[in-house]
């Protein structure tokens, strides 16, 4: 029967796998193939050039800068976003003081309201968020500098996106703002499934909020955090970082290459400079970075699963 069972499973898998191979795997293979050509993207003529694109990439300062920024995005953004989201989710679900007659485990006052508010940015498309923040960062009449003026900090009027030392951080802050709400909701759901008696036991033993968080909440939430980590990292390497950098920054990618990221560079090479083959070469580098990131997170994050 064993044989028949596999045939049965394969029957169900054939169509989705076929679609997957056609629309996901095949384009990947094509891209890798094009990275060995001199294809411009504007004509069907091209020829093989071997590793030319790769050696060129290794000598390309802008490529290294974009790689550096992408890595910074991939490492820092998940850390900040998930850390912040965990804190907020904990305060909403567990962190409240015990009120008379209420349940043992509860969030801070008004937590259901916060939960909704934090999710708001998720409703807006990233392009709109980026545009709104581009206005907010306007040094002349934007919201941020107006607030600074309003509280008497007239001398502190940074250029934000116009300052190479600040631009990258300004962009990252937007990504954190727009994604943190999603993870608050995700972690809230995870926390809701942790049995209350574990918390009660910890409370009886005299555990404070920090101990409860690190000894109970985090270990039991680890699987969710890990998938959140991978998801956030991909977001930081891929489409979301492209959208904010393309829409918000000087140039885009500037000032002086201070915000350029790999996806943006792929786009510029393919669609501005007519060098599609070189763009796919950078795409291959991006693929390697993304795979390495996913593998790293999976390996480092591996822990024994707790049953409860």
């Amino acid at each position, binding site marked *: 029967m064993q044989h028949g069972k596999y045939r049965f499973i394969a029957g169900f898998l054939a169509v989705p796998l076929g679609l997957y191979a056609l629309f996901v*795997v095949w384009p990947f293979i094509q891209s890798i193939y094009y990275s060995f050509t001199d294809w411009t*993207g504007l004509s069907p003529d091209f020829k093989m050039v071997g590793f030319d694109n790769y050696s060129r990439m290794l000598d390309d300062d802008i490529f290294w800068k974009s790689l550096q920024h992408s890595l910074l995005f991939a490492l820092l953004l998940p850390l900040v976003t998930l850390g912040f989201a965990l804190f907020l989710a904990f305060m909403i679900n567990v962190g409240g003081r015990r009120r008379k007659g209420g349940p043992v485990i509860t969030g801070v006052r008004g937590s259901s309201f916060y939960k909704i508010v934090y999710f708001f940015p998720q409703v807006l498309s990233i392009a709109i968020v980026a545009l709104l923040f581009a206005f907010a960062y306007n040094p002349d*009449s934007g919201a941020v500098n107006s607030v600074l003026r309003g509280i008497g900090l007239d001398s502190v009027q940074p250029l934000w996106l116009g300052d190479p030392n600040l631009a990258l951080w300004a962009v990252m802050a937007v990504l954190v703002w727009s994604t943190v709400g999603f993870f608050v909701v995700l972690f809230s759901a995870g926390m809701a499934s942790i049995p209350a008696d574990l918390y009660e036991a910890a409370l009886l033993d005299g555990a404070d909020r920090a101990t409860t968080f690190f000894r109970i909440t985090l270990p039991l939430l680890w699987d969710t955090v890990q998938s959140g980590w991978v998801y956030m990292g991909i977001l930081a390497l891929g489409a979301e970082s492209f959208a904010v950098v393309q829409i918000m920054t000087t*140039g885009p990618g500037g000032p002086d290459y201070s915000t350029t990221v790999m996806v943006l560079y792929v786009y510029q090479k393919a669609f501005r400079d007519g060098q*599609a083959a070189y763009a*796919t070469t950078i795409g291959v580098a991006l693929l390697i970075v993304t795979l390495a990131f996913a593998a790293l997170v999976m390996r480092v994050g591996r822990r024994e699963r707790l049953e409860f």
Partner: protein
Amino acid sequence: MGSTSARNPENNGSAGVGRRDLIKRSAALGLISVPAMSFLSACASGGGSGNGDKAKAGKKTSKNPLGVNDTAQMEFVLFDGGFGKEYAEDAVKVYEKNLPRAKVKFSATQKIQSTLQPRFNQGTPPDLIDNSGAEQMDMGVLVGKNQLADLTPLLDAPSVDDPAKKVRDTLRPGIVEMGQFDGEQVWILYYAYTVYGVWYSQKALDSLDEQYPQTWDQMLAVCAKAKKKGMAGWTYAGKYPYYLPFSLYPMIGKVGGVEVLDAIDNLEPNAWKHPAVKACFEAYYELYKKGYVLKGTPGLDHIQSQTAWAKGKALFLPNGSWVENESANVIPQDFDLAVAAPTGIDSSDKMPFGTIWASGGEPFIVPSKAKNTEGGMEQLRIMLSEASSKNFTSKVKSLTAYNGGTEGITLTPGLKSGVAALDKAGENVVNPRLQDWYAQLQKEKIGVSGLGEMMAGRLTPAEAVKKIQGFADETAKDPSIKRYKHQ
């Protein structure tokens, strides 16, 4: 030089791999979604070059000098941007009237590249394209890959209004040269005509009791006066500092002569180290140093800077003639928009005051692999008639490549001032080409990393010159970039 699909490896790599491995691997791949890559490669997988089914040439007559096949379909794709599509629709109607048996397939889009790139790759492009906007396809690559038809037959055809005059002789100065890349052939016809320079409100200048300055000392004096009234002298699109060259390049040309600009365009060694370049950089840097640039400008995009300028926060703005249309909703009624040729250094400048940058915009191309190239050119010939040109100018407030066509229609203040500036310039019209030839060099290297950094005070003029010369040398050496020279 095979076609894309013929060279694709047929093996997708999954054959011979165990089912379990395949599932594992696909799952691993599923984690990574690199959208750019998958949609990139989607472009290339087309058919071969569909070159065989050109429309048969029609008979050449005085009414049909290009010999258009009067039953063939003509497909026209327009960039639907600031100029809208009405002007082209009107021209299409004329084509349909002249050739009643021909079908015209007209469409307008903002996504030129996404719509047309796959069709170029398949060898089935439309007959006439307005290759413009943010999704412009790289002209250098299109020319280099022989994708464009030579427009010489159109230029040598008799014009619509006067059969004794060739189309080429009805165009404004520089239009034909701009369409050339590295030989006699003309690949592009720029339909709109843009005047670049320093834009300002005549009313604001009058309120300062000043004239537009002709030397840099006067410029600084005007800015000082404006500053006293709480108005900045200059602002510009800080996030896109490649707007600065609109007044800076013609200034370099005025100070040092056209040869300096040509040397820059030709990527000659040390072209940027010419004393004229340094003098102009220092002049601009002085605006920053003396606090004459609107505070926060390096963080403003073009719309924000234009809005601040229209509100009277700054006096001068380097820009092109589209600014009148683009900022129409923020420019006050009594603003009295005007454009001036860039201020020079002093009377020792090589060219007279009035030297201005004007050149074509809205590049129209006829693909070489189009089925009905004659039809595409005939449509262009119609658009270059006086009637069509007037229609364009009165509808979208911009000049066209047709020399004239402003009599008898009411011009807006900016347009009127642009025409006057062109009259004043006469022969002294310069046309720097970096932005068409080397987009990356002009925009992100010279613009953002050179001029932008200098005007934000993070580079001195000397450092900026050195950095920009380095960028130019890089481009001159880069084997992946096709290079051009002034003829």
